[in-house]
């Protein structure tokens, strides 16, 4: 075999290996999803969704868990979006390239890389103890807001950056103030991108368990929370709790709850992808 033939063979071999690697992750994911579906699908019924948790696996439900997840989702949105978008707009449109802005920029990027459990410790100290919120929904939502703020800020800035300079010039040339230009032109033009980031951030928040465990969210909550100061649990914590139990019945419950959690995550991600595509197609400068 000549050298060239050997090289071609290696080239082909790598191509096969490349296909293998590209799909192995997806295949494993598929195996896993099927496994979960087999294990958990039969367990999902109306009772499972509307029942309180219980010591007996067959009677336990996820009512408190998904109610808690919903509370957290709504509160986190209300807190994190205005703050994140405002911060993104400020950093991109208003702040001068000073040392402070630079410092903030590096730090925000850095915050995005901090493990979520650290946010939990921070949240427990700041919101739980100093503000006296304990392990309440509000403390949880504030903690998750801290967690997703960097994501929202970064995507807001990127979306704003994509708005061409000429649009701003046109607005300024008509006598618009900076605020009018931002509000009337820049924000509407970048809205799709911002929304995509916001939904991705939400989907991240829905799956988080670690920081909420640290601030003191409970594994067992016998009632549905009715106010932001109530104690709570969320789906990922419920899953964690059931997974850690030795009885096989609880693993079935966990699988069933995972199906629900994945459904929520995939729907949120699907919306984000849809919006991103739609937005990219619509805006051609």
């Amino acid at each position: 075999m000549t050298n060239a033939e050997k090289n071609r063979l290696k080239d082909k071999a790598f191509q096969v290996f490349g296909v293998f690697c590209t799909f192995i992750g997806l295949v494993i994911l598929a195996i896993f999803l099927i496994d979960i579906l087999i294990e958990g699908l039969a367990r999902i019924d109306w009772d499972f969704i509307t029942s309180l948790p219980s010591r007996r696996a067959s009677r336990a439900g996820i009512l408190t868990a998904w109610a808690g997840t919903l509370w957290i989702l709504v509160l986190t949105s209300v807190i994190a979006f205005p703050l994140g978008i405002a911060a993104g707009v400020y950093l991109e449109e208003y702040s001068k390239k000073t040392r402070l802005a630079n410092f903030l920029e590096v730090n925000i990027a850095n915050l995005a890389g901090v493990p979520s459990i650290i946010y939990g410790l921070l949240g427990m100290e700041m919101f739980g103890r100093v503000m006296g919120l304990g392990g309440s929904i509000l403390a949880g939502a504030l903690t998750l807001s801290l967690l997703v703020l960097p994501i929202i800020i970064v995507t807001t800035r990127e979306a704003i950056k994509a708005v061409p300079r000429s649009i701003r010039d046109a607005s300024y040339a008509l006598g618009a103030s900076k605020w009018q230009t931002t509000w009337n032109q820049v924000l509407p033009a970048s809205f799709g991108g911002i929304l995509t980031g916001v939904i991705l951030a939400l989907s991240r928040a829905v799956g988080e368990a670690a920081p909420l465990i640290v601030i003191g969210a409970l594994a067992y909550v016998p009632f549905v929370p009715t106010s932001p100061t109530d104690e709570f649990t969320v789906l990922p914590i419920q899953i964690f709790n059931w997974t850690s139990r030795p009885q096989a019945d609880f693993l079935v419950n966990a699988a069933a709850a995972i199906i629900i959690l994945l459904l929520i995550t995939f729907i949120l991600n699907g919306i984000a992808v849809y919006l991103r595509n739609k937005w990219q197609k619509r805006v051609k400068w």
Partner: protein
Amino acid sequence: MSKKNYKLEAKDLNAYYGSFHALKNINIAMEEKAVTAFIGPSGCGKSTFLRTLNRMNDYIEGFRVEGDILLDGRDIYAKDVRVDELRKEVGMVFQKPNPFPKTIFENVVYGLKIQGLKDKRVLAETAEKSLRQTALWDEVKDKLDKSALALSGGQQQRLCIARALAISPSVILMDEPTSALDPISTAKIEELIFKLKNDYTIVIVTHNMQQAGRVSDYTAFFYMGELVEFAKTRTMFTSPKHERTQNYITGRFG
């Protein structure tokens, strides 16, 4: 000369980007309701100067000016001048058409809306008047609620001019307004400029010598940040005083 009515004047104007000296001792006086063209090779400072006339350079970091620019005798860089008020008086049209990603109607009335005008009848009337001024009305009157981005390049540029006219400025600055357009659209814009100078003072930057010759009453030649020559267009094109101007006009460099 001094008895004449000057709309815009620059006195000992210097401008800098950081340490780069972009405009050097510019002295010029532009007549009311006339077209003044700025010509010169790329990077000569003509666009920079145009953009100092309505302070569009304010947003560029490290940019600063020394000296005065007078609009109707008032220094536009004075502390008490509000830049948004100034820009209502001095409109601008850019190199590439830059309509907002909104409807045609919204584009035209944007300037009025941000001034707080809400009266629907006034908005509609102004929109029609501005679009008629730019000879766009017949082409777009049935699709005012369609996206401005669907128009052709030439139409977009006329829309941008209509948008500038809608807030009734007295000066219109045009920064190479036809450089991104085809010859037919260019001809339409030039026709328009000719018509508009009855009511407006127009300052136009152009790369195209013939265009300067066709549309302008006065021409200013810039080179390396300096104003080399400023004269009636006819005079400058037939008997330029400076050798540099002559070389540029006859195409020996550029």
